[in-house]
């Protein structure tokens, strides 16, 4: 019996190894060349770290682009039949739009992290990291490591807000200890502050930084010279395979029970697609999912109190909508402005599909991955409706046409 794991981040690797230890053959599939996912991204200069278990076969550079019953379609015109499936597809950064965010030199926070960790490259010399969440700290730290000058603007006020979460703080003490590794960032860190506009002709040269009230409405503002801005306002789960397979969602994530079972009997899910809580939680969930898929009861449960508190402490507040102007780009691919989006809804488009067709937001190459959460928030739609994509990733047309080969 083959257990297929999609995603080789902390969740997927732990799921694969646990199932293999229980005696199962495991196929571990990931789009990237090496295992590790986002957290354990390997530098191209370092010796490759591989999965050390003979029952785990790793298929690198392979994307699962569709699920039909229990057959998975892989890039390179291959298919595989899964008896049990573990989805561990992770998440990517959520960005909020602001005037000028489409200028070159504006990136996601994850981009800075991926380029620093994977390629040893700083995206700028004088960089602002802005957004909300503990993730801003490792990003800033990596940028410092590759020689950039960094300032961090956290839109919320976690240093006060955490005091109201004593139980969660205790539950998350392991994670908090990890954050002390980033102490060197403290000198460059400010709360209740955000980048609300970027300026420049050919690329970003300056940003408007604002102090925020509790709801993120801008108060005092000033302009600062920069050569790169990295923004991250939490994460968006990669739900398309789970949705295509019919897994039930809850609060925007894949719903799972204590055994990481989804609503579809042969499918399990682990890691950030089930809720955002960091790499340790993802790894623990992976262990449980791997055991459960192999038919083993571990008697372990994960503690989600810290993860739940993260969503409260680092919630996105509505005031960001006041940063936008009529001609602020909302959908980068199709260059749809807020004005055009409003026009479309003014013409009666209210459901996600109608909004997309009328405004073109979400119809470009990224298929709404970047703008989906924003459009949903602006128009009060369900953000997961943007992850209903027939094909999980744009794939070469040849892959659609060819007779697929069965992967053993």
């Amino acid at each position, binding site marked *: 019996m083959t257990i297929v794991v999609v995603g080789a981040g902390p969740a997927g690797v732990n799921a694969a190894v646990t199932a293999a230890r229980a005696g199962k053959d495991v196929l571990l599939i990931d789009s990237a060349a090496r295992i590790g996912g986002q957290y354990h991204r390997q530098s*191209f200069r370092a010796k490759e770290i591989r999965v050390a278990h003979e029952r785990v076969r790793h298929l690198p550079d392979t994307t699962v682009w569709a699920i039909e019953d229990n057959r998975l379609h892989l890039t390179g015109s291959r298919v595989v039949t899964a008896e049990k499936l573990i989805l561990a597809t992770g998440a990517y950064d959520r960005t909020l739009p602001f005037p000028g965010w489409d200028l070159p030199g504006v990136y*996601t926070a994850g981009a800075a992290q991926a380029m620093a960790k994977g390629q040893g*490259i700083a995206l700028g010399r004088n960089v602002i990291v802005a957004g909300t969440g503990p993730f801003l700290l490792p990003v800033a730290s990596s940028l410092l490591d590759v020689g950039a000058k960094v300032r961090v603007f956290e839109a919320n006020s976690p240093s006060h807000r955490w005091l109201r979460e004593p139980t969660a703080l205790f539950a998350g003490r392991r994670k908090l200890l990890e954050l002390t590794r980033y102490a060197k960032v403290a000198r460059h860190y400010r709360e209740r502050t955000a980048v609300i506009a970027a300026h420049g002709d050919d690329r970003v040269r300056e940003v408007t930084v604002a102090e925020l009230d509790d709801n993120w409405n801008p108060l005092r503002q000033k302009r600062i010279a920069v050569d790169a801005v990295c923004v991250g306002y939490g994460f968006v789960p990669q739900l398309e395979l789970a949705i295509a397979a019919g897994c039930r969602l809850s609060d925007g994530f894949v719903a799972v029970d204590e055994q990481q079972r989804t609503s579809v009997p042969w499918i399990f899910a682990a890691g950030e697609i089930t809720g955002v809580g960091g790499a340790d939680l993802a790894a623990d969930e992976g262990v449980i999912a791997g055991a459960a898929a192999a038919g083993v009861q571990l008697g372990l449960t994960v503690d989600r109190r810290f993860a739940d508190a993260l969503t409260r402490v680092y919630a996105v507040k509505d005031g960001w909508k006041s940063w936008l102007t009529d001609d602020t780009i909302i959908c*980068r691919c199709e260059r749809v402005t807020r004005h055009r989006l409003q026009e479309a809804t003014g013409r009666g488009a209210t459901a996600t599909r109608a909004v997309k067709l009328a405004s073109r937001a979400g119809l470009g190459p990224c298929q709404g991955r970047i703008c989906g959460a924003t459009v949903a928030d602006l128009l009060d739609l369900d953000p997961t409706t943007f992850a209903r994509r027939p094909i999980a990733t744009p794939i070469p047309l040849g892959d659609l046409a060819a007779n697929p080969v069965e992967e053993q």
Partner: protein
Amino acid sequence: MNVTINGEPATVEPGRTIAAVVPNVGVFCAIGVCHGCLVTVNDVPDVRACQRVLREGDEVITR
């Protein structure tokens, strides 16, 4: 390792992605999500520069 970028020969370290060696290619997310970094490699269009590791002899054309 030798490649060409818009017809110009270039020498790159093995393991480099296209995004790491070609500036201003439209990188936004650097993890394959935003599709802002699409380039043509060896006549194949719409390749994500941030995901594609360069190989000997690759011919990259940016937009």
